[in-house]
Protein backbone atom coordinates (compact mmCIF):
# COMPACT_ATOMS: atom_id res chain seq x y z
CA UNK A 1 0.00 0.00 0.00
CA UNK A 2 1.38 3.44 -0.92
CA UNK A 3 2.24 6.04 1.66
CA UNK A 4 -0.45 8.54 2.42
CA UNK A 5 0.00 12.13 3.36
CA UNK A 6 -2.56 14.45 4.86
CA UNK A 7 -3.27 16.02 1.49
CA UNK A 8 -3.96 12.76 -0.33
CA UNK A 9 -5.99 10.97 2.32
CA UNK A 10 -9.61 10.42 1.45
CA UNK A 11 -12.08 7.57 1.70
CA UNK A 12 -12.34 5.65 -1.55
CA UNK A 13 -15.69 5.44 -3.28
CA UNK A 14 -16.97 2.35 -1.49
CA UNK A 15 -15.94 3.59 1.94
CA UNK A 16 -17.29 7.04 1.26
CA UNK A 17 -20.67 5.45 0.59
CA UNK A 18 -20.48 3.44 3.79
CA UNK A 19 -19.39 6.55 5.66
CA UNK A 20 -22.44 8.43 4.39
CA UNK A 21 -24.70 5.57 5.47
CA UNK A 22 -23.05 5.59 8.89
CA UNK A 23 -23.68 9.31 9.29
CA UNK A 24 -27.37 8.73 8.65
CA UNK A 25 -27.52 5.96 11.27
CA UNK A 26 -26.68 8.22 14.23
CA UNK A 27 -28.53 11.30 15.43
CA UNK A 28 -25.25 13.11 16.14
CA UNK A 29 -22.29 13.37 13.83
CA UNK A 30 -19.72 12.74 16.55
CA UNK A 31 -21.23 9.32 17.19
CA UNK A 32 -19.95 8.15 13.83
CA UNK A 33 -16.36 8.31 15.11
CA UNK A 34 -15.91 4.62 15.94
CA UNK A 35 -17.34 3.36 12.64
CA UNK A 36 -15.39 6.02 10.74
CA UNK A 37 -12.17 4.90 12.41
CA UNK A 38 -12.98 1.31 11.41
CA UNK A 39 -13.43 2.41 7.79
CA UNK A 40 -10.19 4.38 7.87
CA UNK A 41 -8.22 1.54 9.41
CA UNK A 42 -9.61 -0.86 6.85
CA UNK A 43 -8.55 1.39 3.97
CA UNK A 44 -5.24 2.82 5.21
CA UNK A 45 -4.03 -0.11 7.32
CA UNK A 46 -3.44 1.95 10.45
CA UNK A 47 -4.51 5.16 12.10
CA UNK A 48 -1.57 7.49 11.68
CA UNK A 49 -1.77 11.10 12.83
CA UNK A 50 -2.68 12.15 9.31
CA UNK A 51 -5.44 9.60 8.99
CA UNK A 52 -6.84 10.64 12.37
CA UNK A 53 -6.76 14.29 11.30
CA UNK A 54 -8.66 13.35 8.16
CA UNK A 55 -11.35 11.42 10.07
CA UNK A 56 -11.68 14.26 12.56
CA UNK A 57 -12.11 16.77 9.76
CA UNK A 58 -14.85 14.67 8.21
CA UNK A 59 -16.72 14.58 11.52
CA UNK A 60 -15.96 18.20 12.37
CA UNK A 61 -14.42 17.21 15.66
CA UNK A 62 -11.07 18.15 17.19
CA UNK A 63 -8.22 15.88 16.02
CA UNK A 64 -7.30 15.33 19.66
CA UNK A 65 -10.64 13.59 20.19
CA UNK A 66 -10.01 11.15 17.37
CA UNK A 67 -6.51 10.63 18.76
CA UNK A 68 -7.80 9.91 22.29
CA UNK A 69 -10.40 7.43 21.03
CA UNK A 70 -7.91 5.65 18.77
CA UNK A 71 -5.57 5.25 21.75
CA UNK A 72 -8.30 4.03 24.11
CA UNK A 73 -9.44 1.01 22.10
CA UNK A 74 -7.00 -1.84 21.63
CA UNK A 75 -8.27 -2.84 18.21
CA UNK A 76 -7.42 0.50 16.64
CA UNK A 77 -3.85 0.34 15.42
CA UNK A 78 -1.69 3.43 15.35
CA UNK A 79 1.09 1.42 13.70
CA UNK A 80 0.69 -1.06 10.91
CA UNK A 81 0.35 -4.67 11.95
CA UNK A 82 1.65 -7.61 9.94
CA UNK A 83 -0.17 -9.07 6.98
CA UNK A 84 -1.12 -11.83 9.42
CA UNK A 85 -1.86 -10.32 12.78
CA UNK A 86 -1.71 -13.11 15.38
CA UNK A 87 -3.87 -12.42 18.41
CA UNK A 88 -3.32 -15.00 21.11
CA UNK A 89 -5.72 -15.05 24.04
CA UNK A 90 -3.97 -14.92 27.39
CA UNK A 91 -7.00 -14.84 29.66
CA UNK A 92 -8.19 -17.29 32.27
CA UNK A 93 -9.40 -20.37 30.43
CA UNK A 94 -6.91 -20.10 27.59
CA UNK A 95 -4.02 -19.88 30.03
CA UNK A 96 -5.34 -22.99 31.82
CA UNK A 97 -5.50 -24.79 28.50
CA UNK A 98 -1.98 -24.01 27.40
CA UNK A 99 -1.77 -20.58 25.80
CA UNK A 100 1.54 -19.89 27.58
CA UNK A 101 3.18 -22.73 25.71
CA UNK A 102 1.71 -21.51 22.44
CA UNK A 103 3.05 -18.07 23.12
CA UNK A 104 6.57 -19.41 23.56
CA UNK A 105 6.15 -21.47 20.42
CA UNK A 106 5.01 -18.52 18.30
CA UNK A 107 7.70 -16.23 19.65
CA UNK A 108 10.26 -18.80 18.72
CA UNK A 109 8.82 -19.80 15.36
CA UNK A 110 8.24 -16.27 14.11
CA UNK A 111 11.03 -14.55 15.99
CA UNK A 112 9.03 -11.72 17.51
CA UNK A 113 7.74 -10.70 20.93
CA UNK A 114 4.20 -9.53 21.67
CA UNK A 115 3.80 -6.07 20.18
CA UNK A 116 6.35 -6.89 17.50
CA UNK A 117 6.21 -7.28 13.74
CA UNK A 118 8.53 -9.30 11.55
CA UNK A 119 10.88 -7.22 9.35
CA UNK A 120 9.20 -8.60 6.20
CA UNK A 121 5.85 -7.40 7.53
CA UNK A 122 4.35 -10.87 7.32
CA UNK A 123 3.53 -11.43 10.99
CA UNK A 124 2.76 -9.42 14.07
CA UNK A 125 1.90 -10.79 17.50
CA UNK A 126 -0.42 -9.46 20.14
CA UNK A 127 -1.57 -11.02 23.41
CA UNK A 128 -5.26 -10.28 23.83
CA UNK A 129 -7.91 -10.64 26.50
CA UNK A 130 -10.72 -13.19 26.52
CA UNK A 131 -12.00 -13.53 22.96
CA UNK A 132 -15.35 -14.94 24.01
CA UNK A 133 -14.45 -18.42 22.90
CA UNK A 134 -13.34 -20.09 26.12
CA UNK A 135 -15.25 -23.29 25.38
CA UNK A 136 -12.75 -24.00 22.63
CA UNK A 137 -9.63 -22.73 24.39
CA UNK A 138 -6.88 -22.04 23.66
CA UNK A 139 -7.86 -19.57 20.97
CA UNK A 140 -5.92 -17.63 18.40
CA UNK A 141 -7.43 -14.94 16.21
CA UNK A 142 -5.61 -14.20 12.96
CA UNK A 143 -6.82 -10.98 11.35
CA UNK A 144 -10.60 -11.46 11.66
CA UNK A 145 -10.67 -15.26 11.84
CA UNK A 146 -10.90 -17.38 14.98
CA UNK A 147 -8.84 -20.55 15.29
CA UNK A 148 -10.04 -22.65 18.20
CA UNK A 149 -8.68 -25.61 20.18
CA UNK A 150 -5.17 -24.68 19.11
CA UNK A 151 -2.38 -27.19 19.56
CA UNK A 152 1.25 -26.81 18.60
CA UNK A 153 0.50 -28.98 15.55
CA UNK A 154 -2.35 -26.76 14.41
CA UNK A 155 -0.29 -23.69 15.18
CA UNK A 156 2.46 -25.00 12.90
CA UNK A 157 -0.05 -25.57 10.11
CA UNK A 158 -1.46 -22.06 10.47
CA UNK A 159 1.97 -20.44 10.29
CA UNK A 160 2.96 -22.61 7.35
CA UNK A 161 -0.13 -21.58 5.40
CA UNK A 162 0.44 -17.92 6.24
CA UNK A 163 4.02 -18.15 5.02
CA UNK A 164 2.62 -19.36 1.70
CA UNK A 165 0.44 -16.27 1.68
CA UNK A 166 -2.98 -17.59 2.65
CA UNK A 167 -4.95 -17.73 5.82
CA UNK A 168 -6.17 -21.32 6.12
CA UNK A 169 -9.83 -22.14 6.58
CA UNK A 170 -10.13 -23.09 10.27
CA UNK A 171 -12.38 -26.01 9.30
CA UNK A 172 -9.69 -27.47 7.06
CA UNK A 173 -6.99 -27.77 9.73
Amino acid sequence: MEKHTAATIAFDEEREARFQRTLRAYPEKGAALLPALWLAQEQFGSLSDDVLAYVASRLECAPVKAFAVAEFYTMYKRERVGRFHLQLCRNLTCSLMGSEKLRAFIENAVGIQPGGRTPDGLFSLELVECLGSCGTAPVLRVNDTYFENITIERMKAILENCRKGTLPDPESL
Partner: protein
Amino acid sequence: MKIISANFEKKDSHTLAVYEAGGGYAAARKALSMGGGAVVEEVKKSGLRGRGGAGFPAGVKWGFVPKGVDQPVYLCVNADEGEPGTFKDRHIMEKDPHRLIEGIIIASYAVGIHTAFIYVRGEYVFQIARTQRAVDEAYAKGYLGPDVMGSGFALDVVIHRGAGAYICGEETGLIESIEGKKGQPRPKPPFPAVVGLFRCPTVVNNVETISALPFIINEGAEKYASLGTPKSTGTMLFSVSGMVEKPGVYEQEFGVNFWEFLEKRAGGVKGGRALKAVVPGGSSSPILTADEARSATLDYESLAEKGSMLGSGAIIVYSEDVCLVRALAVITRFYAHESCGQCPPCREGTYWLHRIVKRIETGAGTMSDLDLILRVCGNMRGTTVCVLSDACAMPVESYVRKFRSEFEEHITRGGCRFPAETG
Protein backbone atom coordinates in the same frame (compact mmCIF):
# COMPACT_ATOMS: atom_id res chain seq x y z
CA MET B 1 -35.90 -27.11 28.44
CA LYS B 2 -34.65 -25.11 25.48
CA ILE B 3 -35.90 -21.60 24.94
CA ILE B 4 -32.99 -19.48 23.81
CA SER B 5 -31.12 -22.34 22.17
CA ALA B 6 -34.18 -24.07 20.70
CA ASN B 7 -32.99 -23.47 17.14
CA PHE B 8 -29.25 -23.85 17.63
CA GLU B 9 -29.08 -27.33 16.10
CA LYS B 10 -31.30 -26.58 13.11
CA LYS B 11 -29.72 -26.32 9.69
CA ASP B 12 -29.51 -22.71 8.51
CA SER B 13 -31.03 -21.60 11.80
CA HIS B 14 -29.72 -18.09 11.20
CA THR B 15 -31.99 -17.47 8.23
CA LEU B 16 -35.38 -15.80 8.28
CA ALA B 17 -36.96 -18.73 6.43
CA VAL B 18 -35.93 -21.26 9.09
CA TYR B 19 -36.82 -18.94 11.96
CA GLU B 20 -40.29 -18.33 10.53
CA ALA B 21 -40.83 -21.99 9.73
CA GLY B 22 -40.41 -22.61 13.46
CA GLY B 23 -43.06 -20.04 14.34
CA GLY B 24 -40.75 -17.05 14.40
CA TYR B 25 -42.09 -13.47 14.52
CA ALA B 26 -45.51 -14.58 15.79
CA ALA B 27 -44.59 -13.12 19.17
CA ALA B 28 -43.76 -9.74 17.68
CA ARG B 29 -47.12 -9.72 15.89
CA LYS B 30 -48.87 -10.64 19.11
CA ALA B 31 -47.01 -7.97 21.10
CA LEU B 32 -47.89 -5.30 18.54
CA SER B 33 -51.56 -6.08 19.11
CA MET B 34 -51.30 -6.12 22.92
CA GLY B 35 -50.37 -2.50 23.58
CA GLY B 36 -47.03 -1.48 25.09
CA GLY B 37 -48.17 -1.34 28.70
CA ALA B 38 -49.51 -4.88 28.55
CA VAL B 39 -46.19 -6.15 27.17
CA VAL B 40 -44.28 -4.48 30.01
CA GLU B 41 -46.67 -6.05 32.52
CA GLU B 42 -46.23 -9.46 30.96
CA VAL B 43 -42.44 -9.20 31.15
CA LYS B 44 -42.65 -8.03 34.77
CA LYS B 45 -44.85 -11.01 35.59
CA SER B 46 -42.45 -13.41 33.90
CA GLY B 47 -39.78 -12.50 36.44
CA LEU B 48 -37.16 -12.33 33.65
CA ARG B 49 -33.89 -11.02 35.06
CA GLY B 50 -31.00 -9.47 33.14
CA ARG B 51 -28.48 -11.98 31.86
CA GLY B 52 -25.63 -9.49 31.45
CA GLY B 53 -24.36 -9.90 34.99
CA ALA B 54 -26.38 -7.96 37.53
CA GLY B 55 -29.62 -9.98 37.28
CA PHE B 56 -31.90 -6.95 37.49
CA PRO B 57 -35.56 -7.65 36.54
CA ALA B 58 -36.03 -6.53 32.94
CA GLY B 59 -39.63 -5.36 33.19
CA VAL B 60 -38.87 -3.29 36.29
CA LYS B 61 -35.96 -1.61 34.51
CA TRP B 62 -38.21 -0.71 31.58
CA GLY B 63 -40.65 0.80 34.07
CA PHE B 64 -38.01 3.36 35.09
CA VAL B 65 -38.19 5.04 31.69
CA PRO B 66 -40.17 8.23 32.25
CA LYS B 67 -43.53 8.35 30.48
CA GLY B 68 -44.62 11.03 28.07
CA VAL B 69 -41.27 12.76 27.67
CA ASP B 70 -40.70 14.81 24.59
CA GLN B 71 -37.50 12.96 23.67
CA PRO B 72 -36.59 9.83 21.81
CA VAL B 73 -35.99 6.73 23.91
CA TYR B 74 -33.22 4.33 22.91
CA LEU B 75 -32.53 0.64 23.32
CA CYS B 76 -28.94 -0.53 23.58
CA VAL B 77 -28.51 -4.26 23.25
CA ASN B 78 -25.36 -5.26 25.07
CA ALA B 79 -23.40 -7.71 22.93
CA ASP B 80 -20.01 -6.71 24.23
CA GLU B 81 -19.56 -10.13 25.89
CA GLY B 82 -16.27 -9.29 27.56
CA GLU B 83 -16.56 -11.00 30.93
CA PRO B 84 -13.84 -13.67 30.86
CA GLY B 85 -15.42 -17.10 30.63
CA THR B 86 -18.53 -15.89 28.77
CA PHE B 87 -19.23 -17.03 25.20
CA LYS B 88 -22.98 -17.40 24.92
CA ASP B 89 -24.20 -14.22 23.21
CA ARG B 90 -22.07 -15.00 20.19
CA HIS B 91 -23.99 -18.27 19.78
CA ILE B 92 -27.28 -16.38 19.71
CA MET B 93 -25.96 -13.94 17.09
CA GLU B 94 -24.43 -16.75 15.07
CA LYS B 95 -27.22 -19.27 15.22
CA ASP B 96 -30.42 -17.40 15.92
CA PRO B 97 -30.08 -13.68 15.19
CA HIS B 98 -33.77 -13.41 14.30
CA ARG B 99 -34.75 -14.38 17.85
CA LEU B 100 -32.71 -11.40 19.00
CA ILE B 101 -34.32 -9.12 16.42
CA GLU B 102 -37.80 -10.30 17.36
CA GLY B 103 -36.94 -9.61 20.99
CA ILE B 104 -35.77 -6.14 20.02
CA ILE B 105 -39.10 -5.45 18.31
CA ILE B 106 -40.98 -6.58 21.43
CA ALA B 107 -38.86 -4.56 23.87
CA SER B 108 -38.88 -1.47 21.68
CA TYR B 109 -42.60 -1.55 21.15
CA ALA B 110 -43.21 -2.10 24.85
CA VAL B 111 -41.17 0.91 25.92
CA GLY B 112 -41.89 3.19 22.94
CA ILE B 113 -38.47 2.99 21.36
CA HIS B 114 -37.84 3.73 17.68
CA THR B 115 -34.08 3.23 17.46
CA ALA B 116 -32.17 0.27 18.83
CA PHE B 117 -28.40 -0.11 18.79
CA ILE B 118 -26.74 -3.49 19.08
CA TYR B 119 -23.30 -2.94 20.58
CA VAL B 120 -21.14 -5.88 19.51
CA ARG B 121 -17.56 -6.38 20.60
CA GLY B 122 -15.15 -5.61 17.79
CA GLU B 123 -13.72 -9.12 17.53
CA TYR B 124 -17.08 -10.65 16.61
CA VAL B 125 -16.76 -9.86 12.91
CA PHE B 126 -18.53 -13.05 11.86
CA GLN B 127 -21.37 -12.54 14.32
CA ILE B 128 -21.75 -8.92 13.23
CA ALA B 129 -22.04 -9.99 9.60
CA ARG B 130 -24.61 -12.67 10.48
CA THR B 131 -26.67 -10.31 12.56
CA GLN B 132 -26.48 -7.56 9.95
CA ARG B 133 -27.72 -9.97 7.30
CA ALA B 134 -30.62 -10.91 9.56
CA VAL B 135 -31.39 -7.22 10.15
CA ASP B 136 -31.37 -6.67 6.38
CA GLU B 137 -33.75 -9.60 5.91
CA ALA B 138 -36.07 -8.20 8.55
CA TYR B 139 -36.10 -4.78 6.87
CA ALA B 140 -36.82 -6.37 3.50
CA LYS B 141 -39.77 -8.23 4.99
CA GLY B 142 -41.14 -5.09 6.64
CA TYR B 143 -40.42 -6.38 10.16
CA LEU B 144 -38.18 -3.38 10.73
CA GLY B 145 -38.44 0.10 9.28
CA PRO B 146 -41.10 2.81 9.21
CA ASP B 147 -44.12 0.49 9.56
CA VAL B 148 -43.28 -2.68 11.44
CA MET B 149 -45.62 -5.45 10.24
CA GLY B 150 -48.12 -2.86 9.08
CA SER B 151 -48.74 -1.70 12.62
CA GLY B 152 -47.65 1.88 12.10
CA PHE B 153 -44.89 1.37 14.65
CA ALA B 154 -41.45 2.50 13.38
CA LEU B 155 -38.21 0.85 14.41
CA ASP B 156 -34.63 1.10 13.19
CA VAL B 157 -31.85 -1.24 14.26
CA VAL B 158 -28.22 -0.16 14.01
CA ILE B 159 -25.26 -2.43 14.72
CA HIS B 160 -22.39 -0.62 16.41
CA ARG B 161 -19.02 -2.33 16.41
CA GLY B 162 -16.85 -1.94 19.50
CA ALA B 163 -13.10 -1.82 19.22
CA GLY B 164 -11.57 -3.70 22.11
CA ALA B 165 -12.31 -2.50 25.66
CA TYR B 166 -13.92 -4.62 28.38
CA ILE B 167 -15.22 -1.52 30.10
CA CYS B 168 -17.56 -0.83 27.18
CA GLY B 169 -19.67 -3.72 28.47
CA GLU B 170 -20.55 -1.55 31.46
CA GLU B 171 -23.80 0.12 30.46
CA THR B 172 -22.68 3.75 30.67
CA GLY B 173 -19.28 2.97 29.16
CA LEU B 174 -21.22 1.38 26.33
CA ILE B 175 -23.33 4.50 25.92
CA GLU B 176 -20.26 6.74 25.81
CA SER B 177 -18.77 4.42 23.21
CA ILE B 178 -21.82 4.62 20.95
CA GLU B 179 -21.60 8.39 21.27
CA GLY B 180 -18.13 8.18 19.75
CA LYS B 181 -16.09 8.61 22.91
CA LYS B 182 -13.71 6.68 25.09
CA GLY B 183 -15.76 4.09 26.99
CA GLN B 184 -15.40 5.71 30.39
CA PRO B 185 -18.40 5.02 32.62
CA ARG B 186 -20.57 7.86 33.89
CA PRO B 187 -21.47 8.43 37.53
CA LYS B 188 -24.95 7.15 38.46
CA PRO B 189 -27.46 8.57 39.13
CA PRO B 190 -28.79 9.66 36.76
CA PHE B 191 -29.42 6.13 35.51
CA PRO B 192 -29.52 5.45 31.78
CA ALA B 193 -33.28 4.85 31.96
CA VAL B 194 -33.60 8.58 32.67
CA VAL B 195 -30.50 10.13 31.07
CA GLY B 196 -28.68 7.78 28.73
CA LEU B 197 -27.68 7.72 25.09
CA PHE B 198 -27.59 11.20 23.53
CA ARG B 199 -28.92 12.45 26.89
CA CYS B 200 -32.19 10.60 26.29
CA PRO B 201 -33.87 7.83 28.29
CA THR B 202 -32.21 4.55 27.40
CA VAL B 203 -32.77 0.89 28.12
CA VAL B 204 -29.67 -1.30 28.19
CA ASN B 205 -30.22 -5.05 28.08
CA ASN B 206 -28.07 -8.05 27.36
CA VAL B 207 -28.54 -10.09 24.15
CA GLU B 208 -29.80 -13.11 26.05
CA THR B 209 -32.30 -11.09 28.09
CA ILE B 210 -33.81 -9.71 24.90
CA SER B 211 -33.79 -13.12 23.25
CA ALA B 212 -36.01 -14.55 25.99
CA LEU B 213 -38.86 -12.17 25.09
CA PRO B 214 -40.37 -14.03 22.11
CA PHE B 215 -41.00 -17.10 24.30
CA ILE B 216 -42.51 -15.02 27.08
CA ILE B 217 -44.93 -13.31 24.72
CA ASN B 218 -45.80 -16.49 22.82
CA GLU B 219 -46.23 -18.79 25.80
CA GLY B 220 -47.18 -16.26 28.43
CA ALA B 221 -45.49 -14.97 31.56
CA GLU B 222 -46.97 -17.71 33.71
CA LYS B 223 -45.43 -20.45 31.64
CA TYR B 224 -42.02 -18.76 31.86
CA ALA B 225 -42.34 -18.11 35.58
CA SER B 226 -43.30 -21.75 36.17
CA LEU B 227 -39.78 -22.71 35.07
CA GLY B 228 -36.87 -22.45 37.47
CA THR B 229 -37.37 -21.11 40.99
CA PRO B 230 -39.60 -18.29 42.28
CA LYS B 231 -36.77 -15.76 42.17
CA SER B 232 -34.84 -17.21 39.24
CA THR B 233 -37.43 -17.85 36.59
CA GLY B 234 -36.88 -19.51 33.26
CA THR B 235 -33.65 -20.81 31.82
CA MET B 236 -30.17 -19.44 31.27
CA LEU B 237 -27.34 -20.12 28.88
CA PHE B 238 -24.32 -21.28 30.82
CA SER B 239 -20.87 -21.00 29.28
CA VAL B 240 -18.83 -23.84 30.73
CA SER B 241 -15.07 -23.87 30.27
CA GLY B 242 -11.83 -24.89 31.93
CA MET B 243 -11.10 -28.33 33.27
CA VAL B 244 -14.25 -30.13 32.20
CA GLU B 245 -14.74 -32.99 29.79
CA LYS B 246 -17.23 -31.19 27.55
CA PRO B 247 -16.90 -27.44 27.60
CA GLY B 248 -19.63 -25.53 25.80
CA VAL B 249 -22.83 -23.51 26.08
CA TYR B 250 -25.68 -25.27 27.88
CA GLU B 251 -29.16 -23.94 28.39
CA GLN B 252 -30.46 -24.99 31.78
CA GLU B 253 -33.56 -24.37 33.81
CA PHE B 254 -32.66 -22.72 37.13
CA GLY B 255 -32.72 -24.56 40.42
CA VAL B 256 -30.78 -27.75 39.68
CA ASN B 257 -27.82 -28.81 41.77
CA PHE B 258 -24.76 -26.95 40.55
CA TRP B 259 -22.41 -29.87 40.53
CA GLU B 260 -24.90 -32.35 39.08
CA PHE B 261 -25.41 -29.93 36.22
CA LEU B 262 -21.67 -29.88 35.53
CA GLU B 263 -21.42 -33.65 35.73
CA LYS B 264 -24.49 -34.41 33.65
CA ARG B 265 -24.16 -31.79 30.99
CA ALA B 266 -20.44 -31.03 30.82
CA GLY B 267 -19.12 -34.45 31.75
CA GLY B 268 -17.53 -33.50 35.07
CA VAL B 269 -13.88 -32.74 35.71
CA LYS B 270 -11.52 -33.42 32.86
CA GLY B 271 -9.64 -36.69 33.00
CA GLY B 272 -11.44 -37.80 36.15
CA ARG B 273 -9.34 -35.48 38.28
CA ALA B 274 -10.60 -34.13 41.58
CA LEU B 275 -12.45 -30.84 41.67
CA LYS B 276 -10.70 -27.97 43.40
CA ALA B 277 -12.96 -24.98 42.84
CA VAL B 278 -15.44 -23.38 40.48
CA VAL B 279 -15.89 -19.85 39.20
CA PRO B 280 -19.69 -19.62 38.95
CA GLY B 281 -20.41 -16.39 37.08
CA GLY B 282 -17.45 -15.02 35.16
CA SER B 283 -14.05 -13.91 36.38
CA SER B 284 -15.64 -11.16 38.52
CA SER B 285 -17.58 -13.60 40.68
CA PRO B 286 -16.16 -14.89 43.96
CA ILE B 287 -14.82 -18.43 43.73
CA LEU B 288 -16.66 -21.45 45.16
CA THR B 289 -14.85 -24.27 46.90
CA ALA B 290 -15.60 -27.80 45.72
CA ASP B 291 -17.88 -28.30 48.72
CA GLU B 292 -19.76 -25.09 48.04
CA ALA B 293 -20.20 -26.08 44.40
CA ARG B 294 -21.60 -29.44 45.48
CA SER B 295 -24.19 -27.91 47.77
CA ALA B 296 -25.17 -24.91 45.62
CA THR B 297 -28.06 -24.84 43.23
CA LEU B 298 -27.92 -23.08 39.92
CA ASP B 299 -29.88 -19.91 40.59
CA TYR B 300 -29.41 -16.33 41.74
CA GLU B 301 -30.46 -16.96 45.37
CA SER B 302 -28.27 -19.95 46.09
CA LEU B 303 -25.12 -18.33 44.76
CA ALA B 304 -25.83 -15.09 46.61
CA GLU B 305 -26.26 -17.16 49.76
CA LYS B 306 -22.81 -18.63 49.16
CA GLY B 307 -21.37 -15.12 48.87
CA SER B 308 -20.97 -15.31 45.13
CA MET B 309 -23.13 -14.57 42.11
CA LEU B 310 -24.57 -16.04 38.96
CA GLY B 311 -23.21 -13.11 36.92
CA SER B 312 -23.11 -13.84 33.22
CA GLY B 313 -23.41 -17.60 33.73
CA ALA B 314 -19.76 -18.20 32.90
CA ILE B 315 -18.66 -21.30 34.79
CA ILE B 316 -14.94 -22.02 34.89
CA VAL B 317 -13.89 -25.31 36.44
CA TYR B 318 -10.60 -25.71 38.31
CA SER B 319 -9.28 -29.23 38.89
CA GLU B 320 -6.94 -30.21 41.70
CA ASP B 321 -3.83 -29.47 39.65
CA VAL B 322 -4.75 -25.89 38.72
CA CYS B 323 -2.70 -23.24 40.49
CA LEU B 324 -5.09 -20.67 41.93
CA VAL B 325 -2.31 -18.18 42.54
CA ARG B 326 -1.48 -18.22 38.86
CA ALA B 327 -5.17 -17.99 37.97
CA LEU B 328 -5.50 -14.96 40.21
CA ALA B 329 -2.42 -13.38 38.66
CA VAL B 330 -4.15 -13.66 35.27
CA ILE B 331 -7.37 -12.20 36.65
CA THR B 332 -5.71 -9.23 38.32
CA ARG B 333 -3.61 -8.51 35.26
CA PHE B 334 -6.79 -8.41 33.23
CA TYR B 335 -8.53 -5.90 35.50
CA ALA B 336 -5.43 -3.73 35.76
CA HIS B 337 -5.32 -3.68 31.97
CA GLU B 338 -9.02 -2.89 31.62
CA SER B 339 -9.47 -0.23 34.31
CA CYS B 340 -10.43 2.91 32.44
CA GLY B 341 -8.33 4.90 34.88
CA GLN B 342 -10.69 7.63 35.98
CA CYS B 343 -11.06 6.51 39.63
CA PRO B 344 -7.84 6.33 41.68
CA PRO B 345 -8.96 3.39 43.90
CA CYS B 346 -9.58 1.29 40.81
CA ARG B 347 -6.61 2.45 38.75
CA GLU B 348 -4.13 2.05 41.64
CA GLY B 349 -5.86 -0.88 43.32
CA THR B 350 -5.99 -3.14 40.27
CA TYR B 351 -2.36 -2.29 39.50
CA TRP B 352 -1.18 -3.12 43.02
CA LEU B 353 -3.22 -6.27 43.33
CA HIS B 354 -1.62 -7.56 40.19
CA ARG B 355 1.89 -6.61 41.32
CA ILE B 356 1.44 -8.30 44.68
CA VAL B 357 -0.22 -11.48 43.39
CA LYS B 358 2.39 -11.74 40.66
CA ARG B 359 5.16 -11.43 43.18
CA ILE B 360 3.65 -14.22 45.29
CA GLU B 361 3.27 -16.36 42.19
CA THR B 362 6.92 -16.00 41.26
CA GLY B 363 7.98 -16.83 44.80
CA ALA B 364 9.01 -13.35 45.91
CA GLY B 365 6.04 -12.63 48.18
CA THR B 366 5.94 -12.33 51.94
CA MET B 367 3.27 -13.37 54.45
CA SER B 368 2.35 -9.76 55.10
CA ASP B 369 1.40 -9.49 51.43
CA LEU B 370 -1.75 -11.50 52.12
CA ASP B 371 -3.16 -8.97 54.53
CA LEU B 372 -1.96 -6.18 52.28
CA ILE B 373 -4.03 -7.71 49.47
CA LEU B 374 -7.13 -7.77 51.63
CA ARG B 375 -6.54 -4.16 52.71
CA VAL B 376 -6.17 -3.00 49.11
CA CYS B 377 -9.39 -4.85 48.24
CA GLY B 378 -11.20 -3.10 51.07
CA ASN B 379 -10.24 0.28 49.65
CA MET B 380 -11.54 -0.66 46.22
CA ARG B 381 -15.05 -1.65 47.25
CA GLY B 382 -17.93 0.74 46.79
CA THR B 383 -15.81 3.82 46.17
CA THR B 384 -15.79 4.18 42.40
CA VAL B 385 -17.81 5.35 39.41
CA CYS B 386 -18.53 1.83 38.18
CA VAL B 387 -18.19 -1.62 39.68
CA LEU B 388 -15.15 -2.79 37.72
CA SER B 389 -13.19 -1.99 40.84
CA ASP B 390 -15.43 -4.28 42.92
CA ALA B 391 -15.36 -6.85 40.12
CA CYS B 392 -11.63 -7.15 40.68
CA ALA B 393 -11.63 -6.93 44.47
CA MET B 394 -14.38 -9.54 44.95
CA PRO B 395 -12.65 -12.51 43.36
CA VAL B 396 -9.28 -11.52 44.85
CA GLU B 397 -10.69 -11.49 48.37
CA SER B 398 -12.39 -14.82 47.84
CA TYR B 399 -9.33 -16.60 46.44
CA VAL B 400 -7.12 -15.36 49.24
CA ARG B 401 -9.68 -16.08 51.98
CA LYS B 402 -10.79 -19.50 50.78
CA PHE B 403 -7.47 -20.78 49.51
CA ARG B 404 -5.07 -18.93 51.77
CA SER B 405 -2.90 -22.01 52.31
CA GLU B 406 -2.11 -22.15 48.60
CA PHE B 407 -0.82 -18.60 48.72
CA GLU B 408 1.12 -19.31 51.90
CA GLU B 409 2.65 -22.34 50.29
CA HIS B 410 3.90 -20.26 47.36
CA ILE B 411 5.46 -17.85 49.81
CA THR B 412 7.18 -20.48 51.94
CA ARG B 413 8.26 -22.64 48.99
CA GLY B 414 9.34 -19.65 46.97
CA GLY B 415 7.25 -20.70 44.00
CA CYS B 416 4.71 -23.05 42.51
CA ARG B 417 4.45 -26.82 42.77
CA PHE B 418 1.74 -27.24 40.17
CA PRO B 419 2.39 -28.04 36.51
CA ALA B 420 2.71 -25.01 34.28
CA GLU B 421 -0.22 -26.14 32.21
CA THR B 422 -3.20 -28.24 33.10
CA GLY B 423 -5.37 -28.45 29.96
